[in-house]
């Protein structure tokens, strides 16, 4: 997928199943499993922004949480190239061993209201990771907090105030400052702008882009919003019911997708231009239950291109051309042209 030497993160066949419990007469027993993440593999190179898109319930947030090891994976490997420890498999580590790893992987949350402790001042919030790892103390710690606040566009004088004094966009900046405090190698951004107002989204997206370029940061950018992904990401992975169905360069995805689900997703996204009221590829039905997915290709009951083979044979993610991976039996032959249908201007 990418050259092994500049790979920062390599995920292989990652799985996370959640058991469904049922209370019996004497004890609880497992009646099934929700396959939230079901065999996900991808690489992220150093300095790259990989987007992870999909609808709610597709497993994108769980993937992020498992990579961070906030959840324990059911199976698979998470190879992370640590700045000091070299390449390690995060899936094998216990809590004690994970401590130095968490110094290098940080998370930016979706909701800037619930992710900041209301009883801590900005200084306490932003300095918490630094104190936690005993990186700095005293006036050096304070200076670092001031520096971080400046970096995200807040005045250092506000560091003695509490989060309630700040708006959503400002809070998200505080969350970003906290995530950057330890100079992490990998930032997992879980829908960082979804909860923000339209005029504030652009500020935060620009900030994330500037920081990424200035410090050559690596992002795993989780989002349901295709326009945000197109703006920020170098490559995109599309998830559907726990599996990656397509992964390729961002421009490639938007101009020449090789998967019918991506085609439907792209054509569903509303375009902010009334002259481009286009024909939607209308999906029938709803996203299947990950505890009880359909046979064969999970997308076949909703796919307008589905054929007999799709009902029985599960397609594997394969490289249909250099750098472009798709999990569709007919990736090469299907005519999926979103760009063409977008420009014909019909309702």
């Amino acid at each position, binding site marked *: 997928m990418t050259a092994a030497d500049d790979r920062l993160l390599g995920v292989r066949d990652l799985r996370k199943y959640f058991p469904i419990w049922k209370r019996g007469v004497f004890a609880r027993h497992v009646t099934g499993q929700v396959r939230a993440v079901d065999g996900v593999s991808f690489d992220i190179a150093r300095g790259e922004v990989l987007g992870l898109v999909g*609808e*709610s319930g597709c497993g994108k947030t769980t993937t992020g949480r498992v990579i961070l090891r906030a959840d324990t994976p059911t199976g698979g490997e998470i190879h992370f190239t640590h700045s000091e420890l070299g390449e390690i498999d995060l899936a094998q580590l216990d809590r004690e061993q994970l401590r130095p790893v968490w110094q290098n992987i940080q998370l930016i949350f979706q909701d800037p209201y619930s992710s900041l402790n209301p009883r801590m001042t900005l200084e306490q919030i932003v300095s918490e990771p630094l104190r936690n790892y005993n990186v700095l103390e005293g006036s050096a710690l304070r200076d670092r907090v001031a520096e971080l606040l400046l970096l995200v566009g807040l005045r250092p004088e506000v560091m003695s105030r509490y989060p309630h004094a700040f*708006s959503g*966009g*400002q809070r998200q900046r505080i969350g970003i400052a906290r995530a950057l405090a330890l100079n992490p190698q990998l930032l997992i951004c879980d829908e960082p702008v979804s909860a923000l*107002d*339209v*005029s*504030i*989204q*652009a*500020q935060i*997206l*620009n900030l994330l*882009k500037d920081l990424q370029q200035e410090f050559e940061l690596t992002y795993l950018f989780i989002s*349901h919003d*295709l*326009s*945000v*992904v*197109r*703006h*920020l990401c170098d490559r995109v992975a599309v998830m559907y019911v726990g599996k990656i169905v397509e992964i390729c360069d961002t*421009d490639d995805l*938007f101009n020449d997708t090789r998967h019918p689900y991506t085609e*439907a*997703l*792209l*054509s*569903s*996204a*509303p*375009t*902010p*231009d*009334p*002259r*481009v*009221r286009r024909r*939607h590829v*209308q*999906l029938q039905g*709803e*996203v299947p239950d990950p505890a009880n997915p359909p046979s064969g290709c999970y997308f076949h009951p909703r796919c307008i291109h589905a054929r007999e083979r799709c009902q029985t044979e599960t397609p594997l993610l394969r490289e249909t051309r250099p750098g472009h991976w798709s999990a569709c039996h007919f990736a090469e032959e299907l005519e999926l042209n979103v760009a063409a249908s*977008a420009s014909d201007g019909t309702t």
Partner: protein
Amino acid sequence: MGDTLLEVRDLHVSFYLTEGIVRAVSGVNLTLQAGRTLGVVGESGCGKSVTARAILNMVQRPGRIDQGEILWYGDPDYPVDIAQLDSRGPDIRNLRWGEIAMIFQEPMTSLSPVHSIGNQMIEAIRLHHNATDAEATQQSVELLNRVGLSQPERLLGAYRHELSGGMRQRVMIAMALTCSPRLLIADEPTTALDVTTQSQILDLMRDLQDEFGMAILFITHDLGVIAEMADDVAVMYLGKEVEIADVDTIFHQAAHPYTQALLRSIPRHDVVTERLESIVGNVPDPYNIPSGCAFHPRCHHYLPEECADPELVEVRPGQWALCARTPEFLPASGERTNA
């Protein structure tokens, strides 16, 4: 152009809280034509939802309609001023749901958790029509079928928690249609839904509008959805409309600096942008709305001597903007402001 169905004139709604007075809506004028869709777009706190609630005279306390007229042309010759009706009286109750139906952002909270879907639909039908249970059931089945729900008979016995988000919104739309309303108010109806479900619901609403000929007041913060759905657009900022025009003009010849900035600041999936032009600053605190033009602290075109008291001016035929300086920097006709 159809006939005028609803006219809102100089509407003011305030919330009287212990912390102060929030002027949620201050001087909104809207005109809705029969059979057309008016999109109201704005960020959180701009007063778009409060305006919608005021139209049904159901602003919740401590909120109150301070002044203004909401004229409902149910009978074109005898308009009713909804703002003057008793908010619990029989007249407004006939209008609500009977003539004006509303669907909300979160269908989970609009449906009762302890009554089956069938119970709720049949109750609504029987409240407004002289129908027997059997007739109401029959009508419910037809409506559920019409909004694209399979096995409607089984659905009647289901409860809201058994349905997915998209199904709940379809049920809400079916309920809204029970009395063939002439106006449907949709307050962020697809914001809580995934994009593929959103596009299904939007298509459904367009089809139903063609079939039933109702007007739609479509409230959203999403400019993409507005572009797809609206015929006319009102852009709101801090309780005022800053620009009103038809949808093509708004997206291609916007006159107000806020509309222009908003269009430039959104990322697009169909166009590659290197850097977004963000709007500086934050949406101000609603207790403390800036004096003069409320947008002035964030505006590139602000001049202290000119922007003290902007008025809504017609900058082109059918296009109104609340800006003192608009005529000076109006883009030439046909120029794209969001390119």
